[in-house]
């Protein structure tokens, strides 16, 4: 499925394969250290124990039918040997505990610079509300953040995680490990990406029918591109000029779209669905279920249940004319 952006920005590289072993952000890199260690230790133990198992099976396999007439020597145990294989695992556990504790503190209690970008990420069934409280920006399902550099002044983004309904979980493997979005509680995490591009993530805590299609993208941009994006987001979209789009605008307010959706400086003040003020600048529809193209948008409005069965966006029984006009209007929201 082509998920390319429809706005004027150049298409960014999309990191489709969310491989945790190719982290492109500081927290994801930090947690790779203990991960590598525990993988290595486990591999070592695996090889040793497997070798012993195979040796035992081969060495003591039955050799002839008469072999069983006599019982082997009866050995009941040996305190020395047992002590040895109690002490060695203890030492391994000790090392692992120290390394993971250090890493936990390092990642979890990482100091955020005063000027770190703050983003409120609020989970809904089944979409993400994204707020930039300092910039006064409200959007959905796509987080834009500036890129950081490995050496030089770090430029991390502080994510404040909340939920409007049930528990969700933020997980973009190449950027950071997961942290849950829990109603009635505020969680924190941070990302500090080193490479521009689009990073894909899923909601990682089962949250109901459409858990699978609660997709998230993090769009990492150069500081300039991010600035440009932020400026654009802060401005209201231009009034529609075309007749069709103008009709679409009045349809939007006549139908009950406005009970759930918000468009700045208009009577549309609903809070149950995503903010649509700058809808046309977004790359995807329905929390990542389809690319934001006029054609997909039309299908989405016609029958949300076909793309995302069980989602809370209702089928408004729109006529073909209404569909055309609404699509035209929504396209102007950029």
């Amino acid at each position, binding site marked *: *499925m082509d998920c390319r952006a429809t706005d004027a920005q150049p298409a960014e590289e999309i990191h*489709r*394969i*969310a*491989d*945790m072993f190719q982290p492109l952000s500081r927290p994801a890199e*930090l*947690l790779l250290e*203990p991960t590598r260690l*525990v993988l290595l230790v*486990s591999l070592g133990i*695996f090889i040793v*124990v497997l070798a*012993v*198992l195979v040796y035992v*099976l081969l060495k*003591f396999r039955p050799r002839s039918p008469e072999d*069983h007439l006599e*019982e*082997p*020597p*009866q*050995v*009941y*145990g*040996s305190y020395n040997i*047992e002590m040895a*294989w*109690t002490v060695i*695992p*203890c030492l391994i*556990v000790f090392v692992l*505990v120290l*390394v993971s504790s250090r890493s*936990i*503190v390092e*990642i*979890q*209690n990482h100091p955020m610079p005063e000027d770190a970008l703050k983003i409120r990420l609020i989970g809904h*069934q089944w979409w993400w509300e994204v707020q930039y409280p300092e910039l006064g920006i409200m959007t959905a399902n796509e987080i834009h953040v500036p890129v950081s550099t490995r050496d030089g002044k770090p430029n991390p983004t502080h994510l404040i995680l909340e939920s409007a*309904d*049930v*528990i969700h979980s933020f*997980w973009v*493997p190449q950027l*950071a*490990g997961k942290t849950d979005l829990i*109603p*009635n*509680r505020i969680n*924190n995490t941070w990302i500090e990406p080193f490479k521009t591009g689009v990073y894909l993530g*899923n909601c*990682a*805590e089962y*949250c*109901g*029918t459409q*858990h*699978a299609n609660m997709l998230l993208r993090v769009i990492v941009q150069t500081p300039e591109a991010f600035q440009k994006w932020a400026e654009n987001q802060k401005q209201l979209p231009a009034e529609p000029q075309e007749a069709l789009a103008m009709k679409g605008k009045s349809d939007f307010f006549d139908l009950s779209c406005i009970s759930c959706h918000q468009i700045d400086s208009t009577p549309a003040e609903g809070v149950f669905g995503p903010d649509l003020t700058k809808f046309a600048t977004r790359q995807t529809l329905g929390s990542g279920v389809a690319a934001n193209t006029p054609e997909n948008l039309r299908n989405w409005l016609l029958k949300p249940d076909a793309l995302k069965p*069980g989602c809370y966006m209702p089928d408004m029984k729109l006529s073909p004319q209404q569909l055309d006009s609404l699509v035209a209007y929504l396209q102007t929201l950029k």
Partner: protein
Amino acid sequence: MAHDITIEENYRMPEPVRAGVETGSLTRIIQELVFTVDHKKLGLMYIAAGLLFFVLAGLLACLIRIQLAVPNNHFLPPDVFNQSFTMHGTTMVFLVGMPIAFGFANYLVPLMIGARDMAFPRLNAFGFWVFLFSGLFLYFSYIAAPGLYAAGAAPDVGWFAYSPLTTKAFSRGHSTDYWTLSLLLGGIGSVATALNVLVTVFCMRCPGMTLGRLPIFVWCMVVMAFLVILALPCLSACQIMISLDRYLGAKFFDTQSGGDAVLWQHFFWIFGHPEVYILIMPAFAITSEVIPVFSRKPIFGYPIMVAAVVAIAFISLGVWAHHMFTVGMVSLANAFFVTSTLLVSIPTGIKIFNWLATMYGGKLRFDLPLIFCIGFLFQFLVAGLTGVMLAVAPFDWQLSDSYFVVAHFHYVLIGGLLFTIFAGIYYWYPKAFGKMPDHTLGMWHFWLFTVGFHITFLPQHFLGFLGMPRRIYTYQADRGWDTMNLISTVGVIFQVAGILFFVFNLIYSFIRGKKSGDDPWDGWTLEWATTSPPPEYNFAKFPEVKSRRPLWDAKHPEDPDWKHE
């Protein structure tokens, strides 16, 4: 001296002649099953019911894998998929794992300790029937839950049912109520049976069967029962709380009114993690019986093996929040649960090493029980190591709730528990039915199932590394998940074929199997001292025990065990 006398004289009574009892008619059999309080019949009924639910939950798993075989699949709608994994998980844990474990405990514990029945035979029957009813009640939701509300069918909140997904606002209709009430009921049955096992072991041992001479199987069952006694009431408390929330508007987990969603997670996992060890205890139990007999050596380091299971049980009560590394606990709490979880690996490691040491220097007999136990050793090694990885919180931050976790616990529960259940069934089949299980069919079962198992679950580790979360009903084509999901689904075909061989073997061997005699494996524990199948009273005369291997003493009077203990 007991060990000077042959088994025949010591433990057997002539078959009772029962005039006027017409055996074999269907009504008679049903009557027997319904009214019986005999621990052996109840044990077999537990296992049979567990296997039936196993087949049901397995079919649900097939649906899940078919849906995930290719991206953007429309085989199942999302709600049906969500119901399938919820029912699959709930069934496997509560209606397959625990009942089969109780079945083995029921059948074998009295025989192994030289008792004629459980301490409370009627309570035993009560426990079984309550369990069966709770299982049927859960599945009844498919028919009944839509009811007047026409909303939902089977429960679809996941087997750990995180709040507030279970509150009225997010789970309409009655599907969650079926889940809750079924588990509440099942919990009562489980506690009843666990209590029975515990009391039986402490109060019904035959003379000489001191705690230090109990077979390790019995020790593991004691530990399992103890964990059930401590953990299941916590689950019951959780279910009572959800029911109060849903029926009376209580606020335990209502996050809109000051309730706390994370509290549910703490409460659930305080039950849930000991539950994992409840499920692995039967695996330890069966392996610790099979490996010595088929290596022809006593278990290596009996005291430390017992100490290890007891230690595992105690530590397991303090590790629950390793399921919750992602909820945002303070770093000190995270570090604490990393430490406690890693500590479990020490006694677990000791067990694996001691099993290997038991085989070392022995004369291995590659019969079906040992073969399945070797499969267990390998898979449990993998499962244990992935468990160590997940215990390291930073690793878990990436892989919690991903397919890596799915792979990990299937290696524990299928590779670990289910393989030993197969081993146990093959080992004690001759005892229960007096017929040998067919070796060739069993080998087909082993190889098909093992190969299928690894094809299905090995790739899921890598899906986790690539960021695939669990419990998603569909995924897009461009995430790099297609190939491994397809491979994973292909493995299911082999597993199903393996299970067919298993079921066929059970039936075939019952009808055609060759007579086993009373002690076909040359075993050492007391269950082999009576006839196969054992009479209702188990032992005509209470056996006397002088060591951990009473039958070894009887068979080898020149070098009895009690000289070495």
